[in-house]
C-alpha cells in the first residue's frame, strides 16, 4: 500500500514520512500528493506571523487548545530558519506546544526554511495539504520570526494574523506598510507589558487611515497575553468571523483562484526550468553557451531565444508564433 492510501486510512507514520519526502524533494512524493489532492481543500488555514519572540508559538499553543475544546482536529506547521552557513537548523517552536504532543487530535510538524526567503519553506503548502487530507479541521501555520518582506503566508492562509508586541522600537511607523496590509487580524501580544495601550492605539490609527471599499473586511486589533491564555477566546471568535466573512462576501473564490494560480505558476516555472536546464546541462549546450559568453561571442539574450526555440516548439508554439 502506498503512503497516500495509508494516510487516508489514518496512518500517522505514513503522513510524517510523506512530509519528509516532500521536504527532501523526493520525486516519489509527487504521485502520493496527486492521490491526496482530491481529499484536500477542506481545512481552515490560519497564518501567524510577526517578529522573532513576539509569542507566536505560545499563541499557536493557546489557539490549538481553544479549537480542541470545540472538538476540532488541529494541524500545526511551525517554520524556523535554516542556518545559511551550515544548512542545519534548531526548530524550537514545539517547546511552547508540548502539552499537545500526545493528543491524537493534534499533529505538529516543524519545518526549516531550507534557503527559502518568504518566511515559510517551499514544502509548506504540500505539508499543509497532507494535513488537510489527514482530516485536520484547522491548520495553523507559524512563519519564521519575520521583518517585513517575508509575506508568502498571505497567499497560503485564509486568515493571516500579524502579531506585534508593545515597545517594538519607539515608533510603530517603523513597521512598513507591507506587514500592515497583509493582516486580517492584528494581535498585540504581551499585553501585560507597558505600552500595550499605545501600540493598540497606534495600530488602530494606522488602520483607520487605510482606504477600504464598502463592505470590505476591516481588521481588528486584539490584545492577548498568550502566556496566560488571556484574550484567546476573542481571537478565535475573530477567526470564525473572518472565515464567515470570506464565504458571505464571496472573497473565498477570489482567494482560492489567486492561490491556485500562484501554485500552478510556480510549479510550472520550476518544472520547465528544471527540465530544460537538465537537458542543456547534460547535452553540452550550457557549457557551449557559457564559454561563448566569456569570449563575448554569444550573448545571453540570443542564447535564451535559441533555447526556447529549440525546446518549446510544440504545436501550440507554432500556432502562436
Amino acid at each position: 500500500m502506498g503512503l497516500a492510501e495509508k494516510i487516508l486510512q489514518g496512518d500517522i507514520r505514513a503522513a510524517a514520512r510523506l512530509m519528509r519526502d516532500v521536504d527532501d524533494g523526493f520525486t516519489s512524493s509527487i504521485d502520493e500528493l496527486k492521490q491526496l489532492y482530491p481529499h484536500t481543500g477542506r481545512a481552515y488555514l490560519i497564518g501567524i506571523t510577526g517578529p522573532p519572540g513576539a509569542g507566536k508559538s505560545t499563541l499557536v499553543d493557546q489557539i490549538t487548545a481553544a479549537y480542541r475544546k470545540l472538538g476540532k482536529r488541529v494541524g500545526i506547521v511551525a517554520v524556523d530558519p535554516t542556518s545559511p552557513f551550515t544548512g542545519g537548523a534548531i526548530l524550537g517552536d514545539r517547546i511552547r506546544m508540548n502539552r499537545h504532543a500526545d493528543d491524537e487530535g493534534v499533529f505538529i510538524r516543524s519545518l526549516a526554511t531550507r534557503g527559502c526567503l518568504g518566511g515559510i519553506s517551499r514544502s509548506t503548502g504540500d505539508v499543509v495539504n497532507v494535513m488537510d487530507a489527514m482530516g485536520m479541521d484547522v491548520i495553523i501555520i507559524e512563519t519564521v520570526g519575520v521583518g517585513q518582506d517575508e509575506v508568502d503566508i498571505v497567499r497560503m492562509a485564509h486568515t493571516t494574523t500579524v502579531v506585534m508586541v508593545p515597545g517594538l522600537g519607539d515608533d510603530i511607523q517603523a513597521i512598513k506598510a507591507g506587514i500592515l496590509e497583509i493582516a486580517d487580524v492584528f494581535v498585540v501580544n504581551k499585553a501585560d507589558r507597558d505600552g500595550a495601550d499605545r501600540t493598540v492605539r497606534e495600530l488602530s490609527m494606522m488602520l483607520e487611515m487605510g482606504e477600504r471599499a464598502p463592505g470590505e473586511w476591516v481588521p481588528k486589533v486584539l490584545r492577548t497575553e498568550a502566556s496566560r491564555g488571556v484574550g484567546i477566546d476573542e481571537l478565535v471568535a475573530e477567526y470564525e468571523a473572518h472565515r464567515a466573512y470570506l464565504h458571505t462576501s464571496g472573497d473565498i473564490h477570489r482567494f482560492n483562484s489567486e492561490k491556485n494560480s500562484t501554485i500552478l505558476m510556480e510549479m510550472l516555472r520550476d518544472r520547465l526550468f528544471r527540465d530544460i536546464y537538465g537537458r542543456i546541462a547534460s547535452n553540452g549546450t550550457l557549457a557551449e553557451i557559457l564559454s561563448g559568453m566569456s569570449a563575448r561571442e554569444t550573448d545571453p539574450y540570443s542564447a535564451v531565444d535559441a533555447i526556447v526555440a529549440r525546446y518549446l516548439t510544440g504545436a501550440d508554439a507554432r500556432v502562436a508564433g
Partner: protein
Amino acid sequence: MAERKLRVLVGKPGLDGHDRGAKVVARAFRDAGLEVIYTGLHQTPEQIVAAAIQEDVDCIGLSILSGAHNTLLPKVCQLLKEKNADDIAVFCGGVIPEDDIPGLKSAGIKEVFTPGTSTEDIVAWVKEHIHG
C-alpha cells in the same frame, strides 16, 4: 534521487532542569548540518515518542542529569516499540554512572555520552551510526 536531511529530536525527559548540555549538543548538531527538533524541558516519554513520530526524525537524543535515567530512558524505547517505531534510534547523555550503562544499552539505548565528551565525538558518532 534527492538526499535525506538528517533530523534529530533533542529533549529532556522528566523533572530535570539541567538544560545546558542539551542546548550545547543541539547547537553542535545544527552546526553539523542536521535539523534539530528541540523540545525543551520536562517531557514525558509519551510526548517524546509522539513528537519523534510526527517529526519523522531518524533518532532521538535525550539529556538527563536528574538520576531518573533507569526508568525514563527504557520507557521511551518501550513506547517506540509499541508504536512500531523502534527504527528510530535512541541515544543519551548526561550524568549517568558507568554501572548503569550496560542496563540502558540492553533496554535499547544505542549509546551513552557522559560529561566531558566532546561535541565533535558526539557528532561523529551520529554521522557514523545514523542514516536517513
